[in-house]
């Protein structure tokens, strides 16, 4: 055994560093990008934690995470039946529409509302472990992806039930477009969802950082998000904007078009439902991806090192 103790050793710590101090690099893009990159490398950690979060939530219930699927199923069924009557839509095409919209919305909702709390809720871990901050964000988004996967089962069931009418070309009431019906284009939903999830990361980063400094943000977002749910075409279809005016919709179509969440929703939902893909949604989402990530990286660069002081 090497001697643990010895009296005559020179102090191993010297007062001055051997070299000149490097310039502080806390506020550089290198560190901001490095944080995201290192977090990605910790896949094992946030992957495991995300699973654990889901298992943990349903640990003491008999059917476990199946609850996620069941509650989504009932909600989508009830909303689909109600609104198809209110808006005079075919159940066979409208119920899948509402289900798909609601499943995707739940993902977006989870990422935004939990995103605002992401650093506040992880205060203990942030103050005790020198892990990249983005780890907490990735854990959150991964958990939401897993929820989404559970909910998607509901959509697949609905799709199976209405398969005959969904695979034929059909029209939503109030719209002149003939939708081609579900075909191999449904695969486009995969990259579309990946893109939405990629955006969820910057949203949670940005909102999480701002919220840890200004604690009024989370309640504000939590209350506004309900409003946004009703403003977004989820339980209603853009076709009604046309039918109320008896024509092309006019200015009313902007209610949907000016809502960024509509575009995120639509790139995933259209292929799932066999709707004609409108490429301008992709353009808008791509724009938000670039702008959003730039913004998030700037904020991360400036305030990354402050988070552990703020939470």
């Amino acid at each position, binding site marked *: 055994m*090497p*001697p*643990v*103790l*010895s*009296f005559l*050793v*020179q*102090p*191993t*710590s*010297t*007062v*001055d*560093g*051997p070299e000149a*101090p*490097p*310039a*502080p*690099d*806390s506020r550089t893009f290198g560190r901001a990008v490095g944080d995201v990159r290192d977090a990605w490398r910790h896949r*094992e*950690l946030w992957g*495991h*934690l995300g699973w*654990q979060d889901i*298992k*943990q939530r349903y*640990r003491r219930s008999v059917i476990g995470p199946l609850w996620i699927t069941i509650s989504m199923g009932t909600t989508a069924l009830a909303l689909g039946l109600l609104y198809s009557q209110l808006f005079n839509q075919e159940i066979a095409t409208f119920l899948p529409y509402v289900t798909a919209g609601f499943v995707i919305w739940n993902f977006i909702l989870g990422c935004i509302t939990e995103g605002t709390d992401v650093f506040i809720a992880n205060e*203990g*871990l*942030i*103050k*005790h*472990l*020198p*892990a990249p901050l983005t780890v907490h964000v990735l854990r959150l988004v991964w958990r939401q992806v897993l929820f989404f996967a559970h909910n998607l089962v509901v959509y697949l069931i609905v799709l199976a039930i209405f398969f005959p009418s969904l695979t034929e070309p059909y029209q939503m009431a109030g719209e002149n477009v003939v939708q081609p019906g579900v075909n191999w284009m449904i695969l486009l939903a995969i990259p579309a969802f990946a893109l939405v999830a990629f955006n969820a990361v910057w949203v949670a980063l940005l909102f999480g950082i701002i919220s840890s*400094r*200004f*604690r*009024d*943000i989370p309640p504000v977002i939590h209350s506004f998000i309900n409003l946004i749910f009703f403003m977004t075409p989820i339980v209603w279809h853009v076709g009604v904007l046309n039918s109320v005016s008896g024509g092309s919709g006019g200015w009313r179509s902007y209610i949907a078009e000016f809502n960024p969440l509509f575009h995120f929703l639509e790139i995933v939902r259209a292929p799932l439902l066999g709707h004609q893909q409108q490429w301008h949604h992709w353009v808008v989402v791509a724009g938000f991806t670039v702008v959003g990530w730039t913004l998030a990286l700037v904020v991360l660069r400036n305030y990354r*090192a402050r988070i*552990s*002081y*703020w939470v």
Partner: protein
Amino acid sequence: MVSIDVWNASVDFPIFDAKSRSLKKLALGKVGGKIGSEGRVPIIEALHDINISLKEGDRVGLVGHNGAGKSTLLRLLAGIYEPTRGSQRIQGKVAPVFDLGVGMDPEISGYENIMIRGLFLGMTRKQMEKRVDDIAEFTELGDYLSMPLRTYSTGMRVRLALGVVTSIDPEILLLDEGIGAVDAAFMAKARDRLKDLVRRSGLLVFANHSDETLIEFCDSAIWMDEGHVKQQGPLREVLSAYKGHDPFEYLSPETRQRLGLDNEPILSANGGE
């Protein structure tokens, strides 16, 4: 190469209250002119002008009164707090053990907690799977390991946490006080493992109030006082200055024997007195 360097570093905590955390105040403040968002926020200077340079093989004890900044310094060395002024450079994988409970989930089993805690300390899943049996044996928890953590007593939790912590391979090991609350027989066992851990780690910084522990694990020391480094040097020197007497004189004969100090002349460090 494992090393930690800190140059003129300060750590200031802004103390936000409801007002300064509010957006409204910031928005209104901007109207009147240029007032920084933190300009009116009171600040606690937890550390100032810290210069430390540690390298591979260093075994540093951290002493100081309550509130002197030991825990904060450990967090600075871990990279959790980046200095508000000055700079810091950490090379090597840091394993901080500040609170044995963090990262432990009461609802999940002991086994699952071992895995999670290990992942948090920078281990991979594979490495942890290899160590699970060893940890289970060391903790002597037996079948309890498949029970949720909330069914454990405090001491059992500490056993589990110690088991995980002492099984990792850290490059930089940062220990805060608070490793206790287990029975004497187990502590003797844990001590051996802790020693082993310290030997495996490239660099150790250990905040502790017990002379005995410091003498056992460290060979140099830093004395923190009111947020700055008051003294830094060989353990015996710093401890003597901090306590006002030579700590080696006060060790019981059993401890001296256990630490293998019997041949050390008691007055070697201050022989002139």
